[in-house]
């Protein structure tokens, strides 16, 4: 235990090297990581290239060619407007991944700040912040999502607001836990002794040392928020067409189960990409947890 703590207290080049070594051994995590990289490349790099070379875009319709089955020209066939399904999925992935990333990063940032402050200052600050966190955690999420989405009008930033607003509490608690365990350590005392400002201590020492926890929960949160985006968009309260997202593409597709030709498949493809992405983030989160925090190895 003492040894682990020492390692954690002094993250060094060798620590990250160790992390990478451990991460590499985690086959599923490696799989997840690669899928995520490929997915990001497909959505953000390949999509514009496809548009540039073939002219396929989510606004380019070819109505007579609706519900076409897969072919050389359209690998996954075409949808209800004769658009290339693969192109729709890549462009849809852009929004889905953006929402997931931005909202998770922002939520983690807020959560980490709240957690660090709560843990470091203690006393009434801690009491107030943690009470508020408890309240936020005891809210029924999905119903509130619905109402919020209706109130603020469905859209990209509403989604991000919702996911940030309801996503930071987990991190706040985790980071607070780490900070509580660290704040009486010698290096913090030492920093205090040399007159470092509380903010400097919090940001430079405590937050850095919470990195392991933060990285893992961010990864898992991204996956969770991507599903969240899809669910809300599926209910018609997220990203609105014609801007595609995996959720709203699925929503429209659910109306074509009975369309001829490619109809039923339109549900399969975007859902599968969504599933694969979320799965990859979960795998990677798991691998990162094992790699960053070897104490937990074998527990999960």
């Amino acid at each position: 235990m003492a040894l682990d703590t020492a390692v954690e207290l002094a993250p060094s080049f060798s620590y990250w090297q160790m992390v990478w070594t451990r991460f590499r051994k985690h086959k599923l995590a490696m799989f997840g990581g690669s899928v995520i990289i490929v997915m990001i490349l497909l959505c953000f790099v390949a999509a514009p290239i496809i548009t540039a070379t073939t002219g396929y875009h989510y606004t380019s319709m070819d109505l007579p060619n609706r519900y076409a089955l897969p072919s050389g020209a359209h690998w996954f066939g075409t949808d209800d407007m004769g658009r290339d399904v693969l192109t729709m999925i890549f462009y849809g992935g852009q929004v889905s991944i953006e929402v997931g990333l931005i909202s998770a990063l922002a939520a983690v940032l807020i959560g980490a700040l709240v957690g660090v402050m709560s843990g470091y200052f203690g006393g009434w600050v801690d009491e107030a912040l943690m009470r508020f966190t408890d309240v936020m955690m005891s809210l029924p999420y999905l119903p509130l999502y619905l109402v919020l989405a209706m109130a603020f009008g469905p859209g990209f930033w509403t989604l991000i607001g919702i996911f940030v607003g309801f996503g930071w509490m987990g991190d706040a608690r985790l980071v607070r836990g780490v900070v509580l365990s660290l704040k009486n350590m010698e290096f913090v005392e030492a920093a205090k002794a040399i007159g470092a400002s509380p903010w400097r201590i919090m940001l430079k020492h405590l937050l850095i040392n919470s990195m392991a926890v933060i990285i893992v929960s961010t990864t898992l949160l991204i996956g969770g928020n991507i599903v969240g985006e899809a669910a809300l968009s599926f209910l018609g309260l997220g990203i609105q067409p014609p801007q595609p997202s995996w959720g709203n593409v699925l929503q429209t597709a659910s109306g074509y189960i009975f369309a001829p030709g490619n109809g039923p498949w339109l549900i399969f493809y975007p859902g599968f990409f969504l599933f694969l992405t979320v799965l990859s983030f979960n795998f990677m989160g798991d691998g990162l947890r094992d790699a960053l925090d070897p104490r937990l190895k074998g527990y999960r």
Partner: protein
Amino acid sequence: MFTFIIRRFLQMIPILILISILAFLLLRLSGPDPAEYMIMSNPRIKPEDILREKQRLGLVDASGKPVPLFIQYFYWAKGILQGEWGWSRIWPNVTAFQAIMLFLPNSLILMGLALLIAILVAVPIGIYSALKQYSAFDYIFTTGTFLGMSLPTFWLALMSIIVFHLLPARLFGAPWFPAGDLASFGKPYAGVWWDRLWHLALPVMVLSIYSMAGWTRYMRSSMLEVIRADYVRTARAKGVPERRVIYKHALRNALIPMVTILTLSIPGLFGGALITETVFAYPGVGRMLYQAVLGKDYAVAMADILFLALLTVLFNLMADVLYAVVDPRIRYN
């Protein structure tokens, strides 16, 4: 213990008030008010009818001046406390409370079954995985839980309709499972228990899979933690037979955190049920809320949110209490 419960109970009140204010404001700000809705749906309405309706709803006072929002809130809250939950706009002749009572039993059946199945599957698999850590079984099921946790509920629901309803219907002329509804109609067996179960099969499966995956993982890690604990080692060292160690000492203690996890996840289940019920057109409180929000049925939407909030808070409380009851190590003062 008693004071602890009382304290937690009192803490619920500000949370509920906060939620009610939030819900009230959001719904009121999210579009036309109920009287305006009436105008839209009925363009030939007379101005005096509009005024009368607004007065009836407490939106304007007797002189026709608009009532401030916070006073409207107090009227509304007073009504809730007095049991006047308001009339539904989209369901006939029922109050918001009656509407919830109308749909709640269906939801409870769906969620209860999903919960039961999830537990029956998750607990044994979790335990076995933990006992056979690093075995092929453990590996397969641990990976499987990841798959289960990553499956978006609505996609799973749609795919299950395609696989178990649509495809068999096309290939064999009859679907294996119905794609929705409470029960059959117009068949001699309509509404009998197995007909109900048959209709519940797909929704229950979809709803249980997500919980199942998460709980398997919790159960496994909880069990792993326990079998490494000192008292288990001690028991083993004393020569207690392995079976007895597992079932008498380890299992009991491993199930303790599961009780909390289960309790805490029930409100979340309502969220999952919302999507499942919507896709399967199953008349439960989740779909009711969705319809109420889309149809601007304020009374029902607010009542439903309050109800779910109350439920969430209650289950949180229950989790704490249960934890205190089942785990002798925890002391509250």
